[in-house]
């Protein structure tokens, strides 16, 4: 299909979104990601029954934590699609790219850079 999606998106492949834990998402932010989103199978069609539900719960936890520490929960998001839906995959990427550009860079990344310059 040769669909285009923003080059800002780095894909981390996992066997199932159920593998993605809270700490993985937080680490990504700690390392400077401006946003993190998880794309799982459609709800109800998980090969492992509940992997994508677990992922959704964990993304919710992350949003809550990001709000609590002042980074903003809207930088994390859960999406669902089925494996044949390439165009939707691209649409999510565009949607997230636009949302994060509006929010601006992850403040953690800026602070880390400042710290390095100061040192």
């Amino acid at each position, binding site marked *: 299909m040769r669909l285009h999606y923003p080059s800002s998106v780095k894909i981390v492949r996992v066997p199932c979104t159920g593998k993605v834990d809270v*700490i993985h998402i*937080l680490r990504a932010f700690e390392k400077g990601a401006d946003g993190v989103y998880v794309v799982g199978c459609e709800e109800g069609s998980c090969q492992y029954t509940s992997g994508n539900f677990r992922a959704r719960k964990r993304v919710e936890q992350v949003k809550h934590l990001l709000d609590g520490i*002042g980074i903003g929960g809207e930088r994390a998001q859960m999406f669902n699609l089925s494996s044949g839906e390439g165009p939707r995959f691209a649409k999510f990427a565009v949607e997230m790219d636009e949302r994060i550009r509006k929010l601006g860079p992850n403040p953690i990344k800026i*602070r880390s850079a400042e*710290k390095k310059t100061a040192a």
Partner: protein
Amino acid sequence: MIVADKKPIEEIIESVKEFKKILILGCNECVTVCEAGGKKEVGILASALRMFFLNQGKDVKIDEQTLERQCDHEYLEEIRDVVDQYEAILSLACGVGVQFTAEKYHSTPILPGVNTCFLGATEQRGLWTERCQACGSCILAFTGGICPVSRCAKRLLNGPCGGSSKGKCEISKDVDCAWQLIIDRLKALGKLDEYEKVQPIKNWSTDRAGGPRRVVREDVAL
């Protein structure tokens, strides 16, 4: 096990915001099982706090460690060599662990990172419910193995009260009536006639009422 729940991140931030070197100390026992204060939760909290302080422009060192238990001298000794490096320890153990750590490391502030809730069981993933209030003199033999002290909202020893409705407690439709459970179980055991035995006035001196409690065992003391 001892069931604990996470404290809100805002409350934790408020309690640690003045410190520059913090150790987050998890516990491998009960709080790990109830997903409130084990190694995993230590990692998550450490990451969140690191980002919080960085975002505030503060240079705060946050380390992570999880002990086998915080309610035993031996395991708490494992941090003796490093404890002086920290201005505060945020303990994710139950209230017992927090206090035992504080007693051992007298000059270091030890802050609680969880709310200790009750003695209970994992009924299902994400649902823990109370089973025991450690009253110190167990009556389960007389109540079909179901505890009215911990599970009846009025801890009636001769229940149920008039508020029992369709198996539920008057305080909430989410709470089972302990006495309905007791009666159902007595019936299943073929012992419903035992219901009419009046439970005598309880000696609560072995409960919280008697003051801080001790178990002294000469047979095992060294």
